[in-house]
């Protein structure tokens, strides 16, 4: 994040409500502030209101109530001033099947206001960055799903946007293409640290890889937000996970209790996961090492955090 811009709020959402004509409340009094250069992951189960939120932020959908200011512009009154500064990779949608990869990105660069020369230059650069150079002359209908998704991103990035919205960008991609995709996004964030990125995804481990901050949406409401470490700690009350064979469960439990180590045990087939706080890790490892050296130490996954948030929500209700 750029030093000067570190505290500049680029997106401010106040009391945002979206009620559809069929009565469904997709967003229920959402308040959030996103700083310039932040990478924010918005997660939640299906129907949580993530795409509705993105569509309102990009000006495609009119909110029922509330305010949205982006770069100081009230986009509910008029979203047009921000459109030159944003890049949107929608969740669904098609590309224009008869255009070539190069043409698709180039013409949208032109529509985003770039001069012919700049559009050509940026299109060539984007193709290089997204490893699409060898496919530049291929028509869209000749591309695989993964390559099409890269073209989506190419269009979103070609105008060097200050804010990028990625709505479930890796849905339908195989694991290798997904990894490739996030590597590309990471590259962009490294080269343009002032670019703000808002991502929604179902693959939580991807957010772990890229996000600065998470916003959990459930039933249209923000149920939790914070940076990944804070969220893990807040929800799970532990930050380290040690995985070992189930046959050592009783021995290890006795040893840890004797040493006063507070932990939780989760069983899974022939393994156990010992969940504990960072401060107890050295004691725990030295005790476990007396029985086995075949252990795996890791952080809890975001999936576990996500399930924790949903469980907490259920309990609160």
């Amino acid at each position, binding site marked *: 994040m750029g030093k000067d811009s570190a505290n500049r709020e680029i997106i401010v959402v106040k009391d945002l409500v979206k009620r559809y*004509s069929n009565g469904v409340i997709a967003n229920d009094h959402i308040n959030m502030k996103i700083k310039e250069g932040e990478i924010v992951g918005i997660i939640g189960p299906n129907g949580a209101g993530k795409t509705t939120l993105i*569509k309102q932020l*990009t*000006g*495609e*959908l*009119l909110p029922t109530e509330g305010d949205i200011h982006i770069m100081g512009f009230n986009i509910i009154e008029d*979203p*047009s001033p921000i*459109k*030159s500064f*944003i890049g*949107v990779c*929608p969740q*669904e*949608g*098609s*590309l*224009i099947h*008869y*255009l070539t990869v190069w*043409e698709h990105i180039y*013409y*949208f660069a*032109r*529509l*985003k*206001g770039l001069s012919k020369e700049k559009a050509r230059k940026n299109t060539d650069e984007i193709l290089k960055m997204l490893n699409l150079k060898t496919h530049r002359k291929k028509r869209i209908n000749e591309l695989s799903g993964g390559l099409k998704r890269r073209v989506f991103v190419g*269009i979103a990035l070609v105008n060097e946007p200050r804010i990028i919205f990625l709505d479930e960008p890796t849905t339908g991609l195989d694991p290798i293409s997904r990894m490739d995709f996030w590597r590309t996004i990471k590259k962009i964030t490294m080269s343009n640290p002032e670019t703000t990125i808002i991502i929604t995804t179902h693959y939580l481990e991807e957010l772990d890889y890229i996000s600065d901050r998470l916003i959990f949406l459930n039933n249209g409401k923000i149920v939790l937000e914070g940076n990944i470490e804070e969220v893990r700690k807040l929800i799970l009350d532990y930050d380290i996970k040690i995985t070992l064979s189930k046959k050592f469960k009783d021995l290890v439990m006795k040893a840890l209790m004797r040493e006063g180590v507070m932990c939780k045990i989760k069983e899974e087939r022939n393994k156990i996961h010992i969940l504990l706080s960072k401060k107890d890790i050295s004691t725990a490892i030295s005790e476990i090492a007396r029985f086995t050296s075949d252990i795996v130490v890791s952080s809890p996954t975001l999936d576990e955090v996500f399930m924790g948030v949903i469980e907490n929500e259920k309990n609160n209700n």
Partner: protein
Amino acid sequence: MKKIITNAIIISKINILSLRESLTAFVIISLFIPLGMTYLISLASPNWDLITKVNYLTGMLVLSSSLTIINGIGQFIGQDRLGGIISWYRTSPVHPLSYILGVTSTYLISILIECLILIPIASILWRIPFNIINMGIITLIVIVQSLALIGIGAVIGTHAKNIQTVSALTNVLSFIIAFATPAYYSISAVPEKFRLICYILPTTEASLFIKNLYLHRVVDVSLLIILILVSIPYLLIGFTGIKWREK
């Protein structure tokens, strides 16, 4: 305004590039079939009178433009809307008017080409008196009525729930328009209570105008004004259906 026009030209270029894939079909539908029909009629009609020949020429222009435009615009907007392509335009700094102008101009260009080829060839083959000013006036009339047909295609494209409905409606409507228009027959042959239906079709005013021009050498300005007045609501209703921001 300059930006609106620039973007309209870019969108029009994008649309024209679709011809690369369907150039053969476009040439067959827009030129070969009408020209083939023109040739066949010329073989069958050496003894036809001028009225019959002019009726056929008028019918061919009306039928051809209604098929090309209603189907083309309906499918095009329907696919953009239902397939999500419109989202790319909506999230770019593109004014809705640019999109409308871009889409419209593509079809108007194709109609222009069709008129400029069909009218002189039909006139020569059928031995209908031809002059370049008449051709210009008829082309203008066909383009004005095409604006209304664009509006009708746009209404279907913007409101149909799926692409199959778009196809069904555009096919049915283009045939209704082609046959309810008194092109091949005289308006006086239509029972009086049905005439209003004919008059609300822009193709009727265009047909009457073309026939008057050929048969009576009259440029009927009142028909032109009625045609413009009939076309504007169709166009407005059609394009107000294009939502740049959903509610």
